[in-house]
Structures are given as structure tokens and as C-alpha cells.
């Protein structure tokens, strides 16, 4: 039993030492965008992980607009029309940050 506990603690410490989550680290984002990111992290992780939207190749603002509308209309999405402006602010910023030559802002790469 002690060995199992030691193994468990070692695995946990190992995981903690190498922290690369599905989402972004809010501390590295421009402060004005943090509330929008929090909204995105809350609303877009109900049915799948955040890597779905963060790893996708969607890049234009128009494409994000129809995508978010499609996700919002899914049963039980919990994404109200009032959430949309904040979600799009974050997603549009994120796509632009990924495209920019000095990309990588806030772990966007």
C-alpha cells in the first residue's frame, strides 16, 4: 500500500512539474482580455476540451462568428447571445496572435 501511495505522489509531482494544460495561462494574456478568456474557458469546455477551438485552423473573424453561432445553438450549450461579443473578442485576438510573426503570446503557439 505504501508503495502505491509513493507511486501516486511521484506521478502527481511529475505532472505538476510539467504543466501544459489544454487552455492558456491567463497570467500571460493582455489584462484587458482576461475576462473574455475566462468566459471562453468556461463556455467552450462543456462538451469538448479547449484544444478543439485553440488548435483549429479557423482564422477569419467571419468564420469565428458563424462557428460560435453554430456552437451556441447546440442543445444545452449554455452560451447566451450576450456571451458572444466577449467570446469573439478573445477568439479574434487569439487567431491574430497565432498568425503574427512574433506569435506565441500567452502560449498561443
Amino acid at each position, binding site marked *: 500500500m505504501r508503495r502505491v501511495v509513493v507511486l501516486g505522489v511521484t506521478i502527481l509531482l511529475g505532472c505538476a512539474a510539467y504543466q501544459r*494544460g489544454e487552455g492558456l495561462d491567463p497570467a500571460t494574456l493582455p489584462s484587458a482580455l482576461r475576462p473574455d478568456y475566462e468566459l471562453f474557458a468556461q463556455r467552450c469546455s*462543456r462538451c469538448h476540451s479547449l484544444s478543439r477551438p485553440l488548435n483549429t485552423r479557423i482564422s477569419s473573424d467571419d468564420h469565428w462568428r458563424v462557428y460560435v453561432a*453554430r456552437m451556441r445553438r447546440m*442543445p444545452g450549450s449554455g452560451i447566451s447571445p450576450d456571451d458572444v461579443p466577449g467570446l469573439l473578442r478573445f477568439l479574434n485576438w487569439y487567431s491574430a496572435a497565432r498568425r503574427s510573426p512574433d506569435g506565441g503570446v500567452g502560449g498561443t503557439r
Partner: protein
Amino acid sequence: MKSRALMLLLCLVGVLSPLAARAIDLNLAGTLQLDYLFSPFGRSDPRPASHTLDGFTEELSLKLAIDISSHASANVKACFGCHGFEVGMAYVDFRLADEFNIRVGRFSPTFGEFGLRHDPGNHRLSDKPLPYDMGRMLRLNAFGDSVLPSPYVDNGIEFSGTHFFDRSLQFDYAAHAVAGLRANTDTPYDVDFIASRSAAPYYIDNNSQPSVGGRVGLTARLASRVDLSLGGSAIWGAYDTRARMTYTVLGADLYLRAGRTNVRAEYLIRRTDMYAADQGRFEYMLQTQADGSLPERTFQVRDGWYVEVEQPVLRNLDVILRWDGMRRRGNTAPGSQLDFEAGVSRWTLGAQYVVERGYRLKASAEHYSWWGMRNGIDQDWAFHLGAVATF
């Protein structure tokens, strides 16, 4: 023939690529999961060849989402799994308003909560809850199919819509008519998931009678980081080749999110007619009618449930605890390994570790408790180790 789904997807990409330069938006997404299932077995229980789909299994899906305008979109998804290549989605959506969307083609009719998360990239354990199982449940052949396959893919039409009463209350509905679950016989015991999804009769219904169903749901934002959803679903249809044997599936689902903790629960029940007019087909005596003759049909009931809690413990590590189960009640075929009433309850403890965004490892241990098994087996263990990539 098997690569039909992939060909379809490639043709669609080819045809639509030039259009992408114009206003049409395309997005390609995919998932790949490799899972290893290990189940130890004792000396008194030599493993039957058809025990379960253990060892390595791989599931792959590739999906093309096409936004033609803000009112029209199409989705095509090719999947590779235990039955080779299949078309998991090939449908068009036309939306008149948030409250009214028409979907036609091949899709998963809206039912319950798990359906939206059936893709292995979307659920956090390696396998599906027992009422939706499609092959990873132990003692699969003794127990038979689950309550409803997931994904349950079928050809037909669905009307759906969603409405926000204010920013904290969402109502949604969906109503569908599809070909329906099948058994390729007119004297069936049960629906046959493999016949229902086999590639050969994709385009034809076995009995020309649509199956109908739908779901209604309510989602309430109880606090800024607390959401609660409740839903109720139903499906009714005939499944034999003469459209005389029917099935009814009912379901209730709940989803609660508080902060970063997700709690999900579902209950499903399916009542299925069995062709009965021949006592030789059954283990237990059939109830005769007033004139002494046997009835044309009897029925069996399968129900199942799961309660699942997902708890992030570190930024890259989630722990998942699940209790699920399934029961079967009804007459059996002669020599069946099941009693009139049999069931299973399972506890799963699992973890999901994010190696890199989109790349995860999944591990879980499962303990099965059985009852009503004639071979006296009452417990089993199973262990999963898998990797999943979403791209």
C-alpha cells in the same frame, strides 16, 4: 467499398476547395484514439473468444465542417473503428432562426447528453458509459447490446431549435424521423446494432417505417460559474423487417457544472418486443393467451445509467469517477448465460493527463459486479491505457 466514406470526404474537399476562396468557410478536424484494454481472467473462467473487444483498439475520425452562409452549413465525418470505415455524419443544416433548424442527411438524432460527446476526443475516459456501450463492456456476448448505441447514426430529418429567455435560461428541443434501429429478420429477439449500422444497407430502411423521437432540455445559469441542464428524450420505432416488433427508448439526463467540476448523469430504458409465437425459442415458459395459443410477441426491458464526476486537480490532470450499470429483464434464448433478470454495476476511476494541447493520455481501472449470470461469475476487473489526439 470500405473506403467509401473516405472517398466521399476527399471528393467533397476536392469539389469545395476552389469554393473556399469565395465566401464558403471550411474547417477540417479530427480525432485519433488508441486504447489498450486488459482484463485479467481466472483459471475457472477461461476467456471466451468473444469476451469483449480487448487488446488494442483504434478509433479515428476526420470531419469537414462547411459553413456556406450564416443560415446554411454542412458536415461530413468519416470514422474508422471496429466496423471499418463508416460515415458518421453527412448532413446539411438549414437555419431559419435560432428556434428553427432543419437537418437532413445522415446524422446522430438528438438523444440524451452523451451523444454530443461520443467522439473519444470529447469524453475523458477511454470507454463509453454502459448504456451506450458498443463493444468494450466485458462479457459482451452473454449480455448483448446496450440500451442505445453511441454514436447512433441514421438517415433522416431533424427539426430543432433553441431559445434564450434571458441570459440565464435556455430551452431547446429536437424532433426527428429516421430509418430506425434494425434487425434483419421478422422473428427477432432484440435490435441488432451491427445490422443497424452496417455499411451495406446504409441507404435502405429494412421496413420502410420511420422511427420518430426527440428531446427537450432546459439549461439554467444558477450563478456566474454554475450551470444546470436537465433533459428528457424519447424514441419509438419498429425494427423487424415486417414492422411489427417495436421498441421504445426513454431517457433523462442531467448536467451540472460548478466552477471547474462537471457532474453528468443519465438514465435510459428500452422496451423491445420479441417475436414469441414459438416456445422452442425461449428458456422460460411463455404466458399463453385466453384461447391457449401463444402471443405473437413478448418483450424485454434493458435499462442503464451513469453518474460521472470530472474534477481537474492540476492544470493538466483531470480525475474522473464514474458509476454506471445496466440491467436486462425478460425471457431468454434456450441455453442463455443470463437469468430472466440480470445486470451489472461498474465503478471506474480514471485520469486524463494533457501531454501537450490536443494530446492526452487516458488511464482507468474498472470494477464490474454482475448478477443473474448462470456461470456464477460475479466480479471482473478491467484496465484501460490509451492516448488520444485531437487535431
